[in-house]
């Protein structure tokens, strides 16, 4: 029959009939109907089949030799609640159809009846069996649906939350962007290759163009080479810097061609998954100009102070110049006497002339040195050997010390001590300290007058110069007053020497301090940072 469903074919029909011919007949009929039939003749066999196989419908004869019909019904139903049982028995062997149904049977068909009736009942039973499955399925579907609904609800909640988060992020991003956009500093994201990925409004203003132009141009196009020819690495390749964040001042070329000073901080970051540098910078041209002005003022003041120093030293300088002049005159006169008296030998004359030349050169050197020292000039930084500078200063104060009967003692480090600085300014500081020391000793006992200049390394990155006298020291004045402008103990002094010296040393990155010596006199010490890599250029 075409009505037979997949399920009917799969679920089997169990026939329990102890009468062999009847079992065969029934089996044949039902097989003809297309059912898959399991036939058996005892209750025990029937229960086994129920246990082991998927039995959808069972046709049971209640009169079985091994088990009563009611017991069999009970056990069948216990084993498989879904099985539909059709009772097929001889008339009168079972009290009524009603009883049968009470016992859980699906249908009751008398053996005497038309087999068609039995077949119909089997079909019906299979359908209800199927219905049972369908019911099961519905329950399952309902449960699944409920689960799905739950899941859906959770999902919706999640989506809502997600949306809220997104909203919050958007808000946050918006406020951060607003923050970045409206920051008074220029903010840039620069990639490894030097391409600008983000530029805020102010970055554009500083660079003199629209922020979008910065993105097009690439930040490296705005970074000119500095005076020393080194391209500003931080602009070119901010990630090449090992130490982060990097901070420095540099010159930036604006779009309009104007050069401005910027102070920038660069830190490594990740921008859209790509390594990049976050560069925050500001225009410090005004500050730099002010600093430059103050540098110039300092230079002018230092110049005035040098002139004043030279004025004070005039007699010493005259003495120093007179030495070679006197020498020249003596040798010249010697030559003249010898020639006039006809006793001149060429060798001796040449020798005298050489002496004259040497003395004249010495005089020339003194004048050159003085001129260099008092010349008005722009500060120039270079690598200088501090010991050499001290020798030059000594040549300035030698005669003054000599006049006052002062011994000059140099205790210089054996190695070259290279520092970065301005030769004349550093000279000025040492000269100032040396002269102060000399002047402080005019009242000391002659054999105690000694000025010591000492150089040494101060740690790995600095040098120290100490100028030590045996003079009167401070008469009750606090040490720090020494460095005040216009504080002086000398009647003819300006009172600027030490204050200028301190500002010079501090501008070079060092410190100048004064300490009274334990026995007598004062020691002035200053440090200067060692020139980086300076140890290597000495040949």
């Amino acid at each position, binding site marked *: 029959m075409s009505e037979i469903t997949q399920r009917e074919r799969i679920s089997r029909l169990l026939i329990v009939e102890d009468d062999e011919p009847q079992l065969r007949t029934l089996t044949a009929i039902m097989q003809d109907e297309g059912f898959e039939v399991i036939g058996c003749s005892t209750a025990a066999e029937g229960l086994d089949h129920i246990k082991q196989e998927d039995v959808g419908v069972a046709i049971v004869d209640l009169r079985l030799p091994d088990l009563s019909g009611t017991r069999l019904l009970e056990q069948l139903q216990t084993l498989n609640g879904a099985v539909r049982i059709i009772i097929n028995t001889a008339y009168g062997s079972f009290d009524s159809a009603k009883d049968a149904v009470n016992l859980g049977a699906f249908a009751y068909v008398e053996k005497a009846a038309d087999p068609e009736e039995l077949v119909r009942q089997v079909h019906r039973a299979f359908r209800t069996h199927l219905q049972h499955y369908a019911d099961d399925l519905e329950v399952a579907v309902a449960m699944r649906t409920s689960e799905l609904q739950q899941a859906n609800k959770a999902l919706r909640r999640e989506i809502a939350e997600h949306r809220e988060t997104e909203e919050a992020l958007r808000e946050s991003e918006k406020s951060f962007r607003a923050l970045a956009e409206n920051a008074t500093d220029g903010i840039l994201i620069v990639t490894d290759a030097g391409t600008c990925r983000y530029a805020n409004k102010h970055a554009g203003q500083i660079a003199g163009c629209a922020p979008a132009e910065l993105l097009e141009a690439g930040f490296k196009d705005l970074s000119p080479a500095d005076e020393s020819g080194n391209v500003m690495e931080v602009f070119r390749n901010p990630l090449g810097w090992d130490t982060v964040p990097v901070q420095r001042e540099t010159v930036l070329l604006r779009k309009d061609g104007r050069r401005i000073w910027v102070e920038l901080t660069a830190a490594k970051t990740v921008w859209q998954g790509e390594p990049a540098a976050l560069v925050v910078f500001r225009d410090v041209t005004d500050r730099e100009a002010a600093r430059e002005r103050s540098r110039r003022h300092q230079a002018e003041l230092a110049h005035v102070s040098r002139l004043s120093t030279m004025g004070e030293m005039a007699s010493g300088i005259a003495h120093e110049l007179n030495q070679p002049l006197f020498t020249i*005159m003596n040798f010249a006169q010697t030559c003249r006497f010898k020639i006039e008296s006809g006793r001149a030998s060429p060798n001796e004359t040449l020798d005298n002339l050489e002496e004259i030349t040497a003395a004249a050169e010495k005089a020339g050197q003194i004048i050159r040195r003085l001129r260099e020292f008092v010349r008005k000039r722009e500060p120039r930084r270079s690598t200088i050997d501090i010991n050499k500078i001290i020798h030059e200063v000594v040549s300035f104060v030698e005669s003054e010390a000599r006049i006052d009967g002062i011994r000059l003692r140099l205790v210089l480090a054996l190695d070259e001590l290279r520092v970065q600085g301005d030769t004349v300014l550093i000279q000025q500081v040492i000269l100032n300290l040396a002269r102060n020391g000399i002047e402080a000793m005019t009242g000391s006992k002659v054999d105690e007058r000694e000025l010591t200049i000492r150089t040494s390394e101060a740690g790995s990155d600095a040098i120290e110069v100490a100028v030590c006298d045996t003079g009167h020291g401070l008469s009750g004045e606090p040490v720090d007053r020494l460095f005040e402008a216009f504080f002086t103990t000398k009647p003819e002094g300006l009172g600027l020497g030490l204050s200028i010296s301190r500002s010079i040393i501090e501008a070079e990155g060092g410190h100048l301090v004064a300490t009274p010596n334990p026995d007598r006199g004062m020691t002035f010490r200053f440090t200067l940072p060692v020139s980086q890599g300076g140890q290597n250029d000495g040949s």
Partner: protein
Amino acid sequence: MEANGTVFVVDDDASVRRSLARLIESVGRPFQTFSTAKEFMDAYDPATPGCLVLDVRMPGISGIELQKQLAGKGINIPIIIITGHGDIPMAADAMRRGAVDFMEKPVSPQLLLDRVQQALSQDFDNRQIKAERDDLATRVTRLTQRERQVVDLAITGMTNKQIATQLGVSPQAIDAHRAKAMSKMHANNVPELVKLMVKTGVG
């Protein structure tokens, strides 16, 4: 009289020292150079005739200080002080202490040599006078007490008679004492004796 003493030069500047040595040598004078006052003091023998050319300011003992030390030891060597810068009070002080001259560098070499010559003559004279005085002093010590009494009174212009009256002895005895004393003092007559005694500083 020709003075041929040694020129002692004390200057701490080596080239100045060399130039002075060459200059002094060119006029045929003996010389010695020193770089410090102490070096000079250690080497100097006051018996050597000469003069001193001294740089006034030097580390350690200064020129002025050396001048004082020499004076303190009774050494009377003529000193020419040379200075790098004119210092009037110091110059005055040096001159008061008997310096021959106080000259400012750069000194004209001719002028310096003139002063050196002058100083050497002065030293020569000083030494002559001192020698004479020493000689006279020796002669005076040879006089007996009585002879000395007679001489002291004679040079005041007293006659023999007056001296005899004052000392309570005969004029003949005074005559003998005076003649003996004049002989010891190498004086030919009374005026000569008076001159000699003045030279010894007694008169």
